[in-house]
C-alpha cells in the first residue's frame, strides 16, 4: 500500500472515531448512544488494521458489536426514556467534567508530541497475526490462560452479583419501591 490512501483512510477513521465518541454524550437516545460508541470502536479497529494489527482490529470490532448490543438491551430494560422521545440532559458537574476532559486530552497529546517516540516500525508486517498466534500458544500461554480464567471468574462473579436469589434469601429482600418522580427519594 502506498502512503496517500493509508493517510486518507487514517484521517477518515480518526474523524469517525472522535466525532462518534463526542456524539455518544450528545444524543437524546441512549440506544443511539450505544451505536455511536460502536461506530467509534469500529473506526479504532480499522485504524488498528491500518497499523498492521489485523487480528486485534477485527477482534475488537467483533467483540464490541456484541457488547454494544448487550448495552442497548440493558438501556431498554433499566433506563428511563431509552428511545430518546424526550430531550435528555443527564449530567452533573458539567463544567468540571469538560475541563478535566480537555486537560486530559491536552496533557496526553502534549506528552505524545513532546516525548520523542522511537522510530522502530514493524519489521515484517505480514507476519503479525502469525506471530501473535505463536506467542499466544508459546511464550505467553500463561498470560493467555490467566486471561481465560479471569473471564471465567468474571462470569461466576457477575452471576453471583446479579442473581435474584442468593444463599441468604431473595436479592431484593427489604428493597424499595421505585420513586414516582425522577428526583424523589424512593419510599421505604
Amino acid at each position: 500500500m502506498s502512503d496517500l490512501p493509508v493517510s486518507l483512510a487514517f484521517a477518515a477513521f480518526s474523524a469517525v472515531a472522535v466525532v462518534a465518541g463526542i456524539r455518544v454524550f450528545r444524543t437524546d437516545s441512549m440506544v443511539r448512544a450505544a451505536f455511536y460508541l460502536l461506530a467509534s470502536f469500529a473506526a479504532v479497529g480499522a485504524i488498528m488494521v491500518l497499523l498492521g494489527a489485523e487480528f486485534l482490529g477485527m477482534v475488537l470490532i467483533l467483540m464490541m458489536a456484541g457488547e454494544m448490543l448487550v448495552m442497548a438491551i440493558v438501556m431498554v430494560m433499566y433506563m428511563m426514556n431509552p428511545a430518546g422521545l424526550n430531550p435528555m440532559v443527564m449530567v452533573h458537574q458539567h463544567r468540571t467534567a469538560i475541563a478535566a476532559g480537555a486537560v486530559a486530552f491536552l496533557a496526553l497529546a502534549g506528552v505524545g508530541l513532546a516525548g520523542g517516540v522511537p522510530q522502530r516500525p514493524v519489521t515484517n508486517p505480514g507476519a503479525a497475526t502469525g506471530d501473535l498466534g505463536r506467542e499466544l500458544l508459546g511464550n505467553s500461554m500463561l498470560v493467555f490462560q490467566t486471561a481465560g480464567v479471569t473471564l471465567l471468574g468474571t462470569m461466576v462473579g457477575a452471576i453471583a452479583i446479579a442473581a435474584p436469589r442468593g444463599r441468604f434469601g431473595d436479592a431484593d429482600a427489604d428493597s424499595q419501591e421505585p420513586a414516582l418522580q425522577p428526583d424523589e427519594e424512593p419510599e421505604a
Partner: protein
Amino acid sequence: MTTETVIVVGAALFGIGVYGALSQQSFVMLMMGIELMINGALLVLVAMWSRAAGGSPDGQMLAVVFMTVMAVEMSLGFALITSAYRVKRADITEKLRKLKG
C-alpha cells in the same frame, strides 16, 4: 499517519471518555465513558507496537490483556447495575446516596 497523530487521536478519545465518566448520571453512560478511555489507550498501545517497538509480539499480548479488562469491566458493571436496580430501584448515580439501604 505518524505515531504522533495516532497518539493525538488516542488522547482525544481518552479526553472524551474522562468527560463522559465524570459528567454522566446514568450508570450505563458512565460505563461508556470508561470504555472510551480504554479505547484510546488501546489505540495508542497498538500504535506503539506498530511503530516504536519493532512489532514485538509481546505488545499484541498486552492488547489482548486490555481487551480482557474491557470485557471484565463491562460484565461486572452490568451485574452491579442489575443489583443496584433490584435493591434500590436506582438507574442514575444520584439515587445511590447511601451505601446501606
